[in-house]
């Protein structure tokens, strides 16, 4: 039995260290998010550029600089946020953690599952990714795992439904 030692720092993203096998989401999700950030930044820059061409003035340039800085910052956050996502399958429940600024950890028992969604947007599909979402009867329960390769997504879905089935209960 380990003694509690100060060396094990408790982190909001690492509960029960050593006992839960966290699985990361695919790093390709970073690219998806970066493309999203880039598209957003380019759109804003385009708008500002158009404004600059119509009415010359330094505020437009300042705005463009701000957008670039914001875009870089968001890119950094996106990279770290994807690394913060994680999920773990335990015997009876699914753990999902996410979030950088506000950190979330959800523990959703398989028995409480009402249905499972597997979704993939066009960008996600292009990178061979899918999102699995587990729904319970409580609206607040939010167990969403993005950035899974399709095989892993369908494996997770099948496992979730299989585990959920034999415990059917009115509610």
């Amino acid at each position, binding site marked *: 039995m380990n003694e509690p030692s100060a060396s094990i720092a408790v982190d*909001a993203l690492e509960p029960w260290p050593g*006992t839960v096998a966290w699985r990361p989401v695919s790093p390709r999700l970073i690219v998806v998010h970066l493309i999203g950030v880039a598209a957003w930044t380019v759109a804003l820059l385009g708008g500002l550029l158009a404004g600059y061409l119509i009415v010359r003035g330094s505020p437009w340039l300042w705005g463009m600089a701000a957008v670039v800085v914001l875009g870089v910052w968001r890119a950094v956050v996106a990279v770290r946020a994807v690394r913060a996502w994680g999920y773990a399958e335990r015997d009876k429940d699914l753990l999902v953690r996410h979030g950088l600024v506000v950190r979330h950890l959800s523990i959703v028992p398989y028995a409480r599952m009402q249905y499972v969604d597997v979704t993939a947007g066009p960008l996600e599909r292009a990178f061979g990714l899918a999102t699995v979402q587990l729904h319970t009867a*409580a609206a607040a329960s939010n167990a969403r795992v993005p950035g899974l390769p399709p095989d892993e997504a369908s494996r997770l879905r099948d496992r979730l439904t299989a585990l959920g089935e034999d415990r059917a209960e*009115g509610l």
Partner: protein
Amino acid sequence: MVEARQRLHPLSPLLKGAKSIAVIAAALSWNTLGRVGATDFALIVLGLAVAVGIFSAIGWWNTGYHVVGRELRIAEGLVWRRNRAIPLDRLQAVEVRRPLLAQISGLAELRLEVVGGSKTEAPLAFLTVRDATALRERLLSLSARAVSPAVPGTATDAPAVAEPPLFQVRNRDLLISQLLTPQAFFLPFGVAWVITQFVMEGTWTFIGIASTVTAMAGVLLQPIRRVLRDWDFRLFRGERLVVNYGLLETRNQVVPPHRVQTVRITWPLLWRSKRWLHLTLDVAGMSGPEPGDDRGSDRLMPVGDLTQARTLVAAALPGVDIAGLATSPPPLRARWLHPFGLRFYGAGLAGAVFVSRSGRLTREMTLVPYARMQSVRIVQGPLQRRLGLATVYADTAGGRAGEARDRDLTEAYAIADQLAARARQARAALVSPGSAPPASPGSAGTVTPSSALPASPGSAGTVTPSSALPASPGSAGTVSPGFVPSEAKPPGDPVDETYWQRPEQS
């Protein structure tokens, strides 16, 4: 066997139409009356009334219901047909409601609460009282058979009318309790303000007065609405909770105890001198709480004292005694987030329920039975991260969650873990009543929770991994195995004994 589809009572279109006409007349408002004059107004209303009546009659003709197997099927609609099947094992609660007109004509409306509906699904309006009651009994017995085959016979013992109620609100107390609300306190000021307005302006038009009164009624008459709604509140406890209340609109609601998702106890500020509190309970399917509305949660006790509350909570959540629920406050450093009233926050793991308390002025306590929990969440915001705190939520299908706010992070994980383990156990006990949880393989018995729950919240943010996380469901042996343990704590249960303190009880 497929039984024939039945129609609603032939008077239903009239009654429903009457409701719509009242709504329309109200929508036209005083303004229109003033503009078009009384005769035209009457004509407009009459014309609309005929139209509404015809539509209602068509709707009635095409509406029918019947029970097929373990489903209630409701067909309705002429142009857009809808044929809805409600699996009765999903039934959460059933209410027989009798608005004023229905009381006069001896009819009743049957409302079913089903999970997933944003509003009450499939109100059957209207049936005769006898039909409604009979249908309700039938639906509930079918539902009970589907859910718990271990408890047969629930169908037969319908709540006897002669049986004295478990709890009854004296109407005098109800009146006083509603006088002790902010709205009632402000009513004199509101009236005085209106009167001075008119005296100052010196204009006394009928429309002006009527509009002001109507506008004031919306806000200030809420206590009166509550009095009318909760009038003659009686609660019976048979196999199920049966609640009767209402003056103008009587309601008779049946909630099977295993459908109770949360119970909330509230001590309003103004009631404190009377030592009164009120209880609400949540049933899945009633969407999130809407403030001030009569939807949302159900009343378990509109007003009463602690002794009565204890009886009622014990009736709704068997084995729970609210006088003996221990909670502990968040660590002292959480006062940065709650400068006032930190000590009114608290959370605790009792035998069968997760307890959380909050509120400085209006104190609230939320009880979430482990067996009803849907998921557990830990959320840590940026400020909380600086302080090493986190909030634990126990989500239920009722829309409300138990919250252990701003706990020490280590403790939050321990709570979440305990919640998950206890919920698992409670579910196991529900699915197979009587059978003990499986024996723990291996080292599950080695849980030493006292190290996982440091007595002083300030002690280093560390945790022993193996002790904080029961690796297998068997380790729940530290939790009492039964679904409804009494408040007598099992000897091995660490959380209640070594850590959680008693609440300040009066």
